[in-house]
């Protein structure tokens, strides 16, 4: 068993535990490389099926290629696709691109709040109709009690302190001081009502592992990660106004792997192109309140 085999096996085990033990399960799909690897692992775990809905939080500022790629795969792979959005904030233009608030407050509105409401069912859920290819209002607003998320511990300090099964209370808050023990492949899967759990099957994967796996499995990923001839590509994907491409001429996963191992990115943090991390409190403050 090589390292990728070990990582894959543990992630599949966690996905199957979640599916077996958590009643209303969903998976966040940000369309980025990590959550796409997660989706692929789900297809492996369930032998080609994905037996829970995929939730995408659309801030409306995503790069257009991301949305096209999402819908193409959702139709091709027969996914139950749910999209949620903080429409009130968008209508009131309470966003950073509209110039009214700071970046991290914008994340809190368009991501954390939208996510919280979509998970609880208080916000509108839109579901992809596989016959028409368009999104319709979903009449199912049962709260999701478990959410599978593709965060990795090498991304950022507070993520390095996470659990595979990480409980969140009624207000979506993360109590970092008293996290449950996890050992011998046993996880916290019992919860009082009103709370939910975040499940993190990719916690032990590094950015390099992700690309090695994409390469090995030949997983389709959005073209924004690759240089299209202009000497630029995205290393980490988010909203267009807050995510900057990096200078790189890698055109495919194999070239990205070489670049990560020995090239210019060998010693530079992956999220260095993500502006919201640099503000007051950074990602830890955002994550305590429900950010991924």
């Amino acid at each position, binding site marked *: *068993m090589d390292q990728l*085999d070990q990582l894959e*096996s543990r992630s599949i*085990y966690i996905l*199957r535990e979640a599916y077996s033990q958590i009643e209303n399960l969903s998976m966040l799909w940000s369309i980025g490389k990590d959550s796409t690897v997660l989706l692929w692992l789900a297809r492996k775990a369930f032998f080609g*099926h994905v*037996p829970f809905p995929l939730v995408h939080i659309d801030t409306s500022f995503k790069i257009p290629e991301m949305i096209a790629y999402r819908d193409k795969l959702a139709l091709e792979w027969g996914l139950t696709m749910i999209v949620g959005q903080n429409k009130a904030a968008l209508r009131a233009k309470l966003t950073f691109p509209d110039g009214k608030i700071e970046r991290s407050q914008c994340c809190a509105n368009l991501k954390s709040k939208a996510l919280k409401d979509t998970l609880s069912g208080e916000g509108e859920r839109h579901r992809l109709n596989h016959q028409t290819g368009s999104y319709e209002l979903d009449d199912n607003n049962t709260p999701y009690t478990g959410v599978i998320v593709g965060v990795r511990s090498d991304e950022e300090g507070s993520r390095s302190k996470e659990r595979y099964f990480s409980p969140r209370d009624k207000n979506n808050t993360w109590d970092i001081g008293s996290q449950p023990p996890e050992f011998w492949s046993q996880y916290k899967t019992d919860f009082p009502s009103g709370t939910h759990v975040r499940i993190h099957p990719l916690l032990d994967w590094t950015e390099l592992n992700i690309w090695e796996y994409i390469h090995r499995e030949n997983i389709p990923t959005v073209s924004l990660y690759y240089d299209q001839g202009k000497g630029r590509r995205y290393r980490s994907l988010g909203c267009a106004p807050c995510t900057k491409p990096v200078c790189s001429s890698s055109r495919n996963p194999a070239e990205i792997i070489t670049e990560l*191992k020995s090239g210019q990115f060998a010693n530079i943090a992956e999220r260095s192109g993500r502006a919201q991390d640099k503000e007051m409190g950074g990602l830890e403050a955002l994550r305590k309140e429900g950010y991924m």
Partner: protein
Amino acid sequence: MATEHMNIVFVGHVDHGKSTLVGRLLAEAGALPEGKLEKLQRYCERNAKPFEYAFLLDALSDEQSQGITIDIARCFFKTDKRKYLILDAPGHIEFLKNLVTGAANAEAAFLVIDAHEGIQENSRRHAYMLSLLNVKQVIILINKIDLIDYSEAQFNQVKHEFADYLSQIGIEPIAYIPVSGREGDNITELSNRSSWYQGNTVLAALDNFKKQDTDEKLPFRMHLQDVYKFTNGGDNRRIFAGQVSSGTLSIGDKIVVYPSGKKSTIKTIESFNSLPQKAVTAGYSTGFTLHEQIYAKRGDVIVIEKETPPKTASTIKVSLFWLGIKPLSLNKTYYLKLGTSKTKVVVEKILNVLDTSSLAMSETAREIRTNQAAECILSLFMPITYDDLQTNPTMGRFVIVDEYDIAGGGIIQGHIDDDKTKLQAQLYQRNTHWVTGNISLEEREQALKQKSQLILITGDGPSEQRKMVAAQLERQLFSQNKFAYYIGIGNVKHALESANEQTNIADDVSFKRFSEVLNILLDTGLIIIATVANMTPVNLAELEMITSHLNVVTFWLGRPRQEIKDASFIEIDASATADILVKRIFSHIEHSITV
């Protein structure tokens, strides 16, 4: 390029410098992202804090303001030899559960002791936990040698004192290394300030840890995680899924399901996006299909017939550690989880309780408190399948769940035969001789458009009420096109007893016969409504063993009983009308009988 991978944990008493050492190691070995060190140094300057390497690990704002590690940090690191995941565990007693989380996932450990302060409570406690968690490779780092002026004599004093303690708990450390995290001595290069030490540096010692052997040569074991029957896109595979704990499974192998004793043969090994497989080995998450369509459920253990069989028991002697805030007490019901198997458990007897730091032992304790270890006898509601820890570690260790939380863990030392083990042995024989067709329960359920279910109606109220509720419920299900059948224990009792045994047939025999009949009925895909007076927990355990189905839900009509909160045992106030009782029962089962 290194492809080998290893998890390492740093443990030790609070403030003895674990995070500083890890931070230093990462910095000296060039494992930090560009600019991270400089950024942190500038931050410290601005906030008038002395810079500490520990801040590289203690990422949480509370950790930096209090200057301690609260939770385990994972960091990635590589040498020419292999890749590492380094787990930095907290040393504070309050966070012992975080230490367990780190240490249980490690193949080797560095235990850090402050040379100046000497051995402290958690130096000993953490060493004890390493031995209990079966972390076999341990190196002791005697840190802050700058504070003892690089004195070899003082280093040796701490070393010998700790060696004494370690020998009592069966740990033989690979090495003792004098280090200073703050000054950087002996981390990646030998220091001339401690020239009397010529052993390995921390970095060299790290690469010298041995990779654990894989478990491919042990007998095959796999805890069943689930049975999948996804019908989307015309898929008709019935896949038994799980992660292989040990051994190798191949197409054509004859397998036995433990503890039930049901047998079948491996037809295919299933996977997605890979070439067809003929065999699968330890460590892989996999799935297989079977020739004979036997019933097996989550928690069962798959074993190859011709290999060494595992053990099955319901009274076990264990060695455990307790992390819960509330003490582990006698006569309270908890859950025990071993692999994917799960059963209710009661502590029958506490043999002794150990202070994990002083090793002081008490044989009169009535409960086990936070951070204590103990040997006890546990009584399990349902028998579980296990292996001796020596022969197969992952099959011999368990956790205990108190309400919603994992509150302790332990290892099985042996078992005592009891009534349940005898019954399980009989059932094993029954199932060995059981002849089955090739229609699986899932196929029947799909044809009937319902999930097979046993609805047990019991309690201490009048039998007329139970009968009325059962009959009404049967009618309601039937009118909704469900195939439901009502049967009382009396029917079986009278049907099966001959005239001359009528007077002396014991209640427990009747109950056993009734359970056997329910077992057959449940295999047909029907929804069975059964009535019995005054079911005890012992009855219920026996019934669940005999039917070995997961789909049993019990409704207790009458005075409330002291029972663990449980979705499969529901108490209903019997003073309501039959209509209301039926409605309540239906609301509970509505979900579980739908395909």
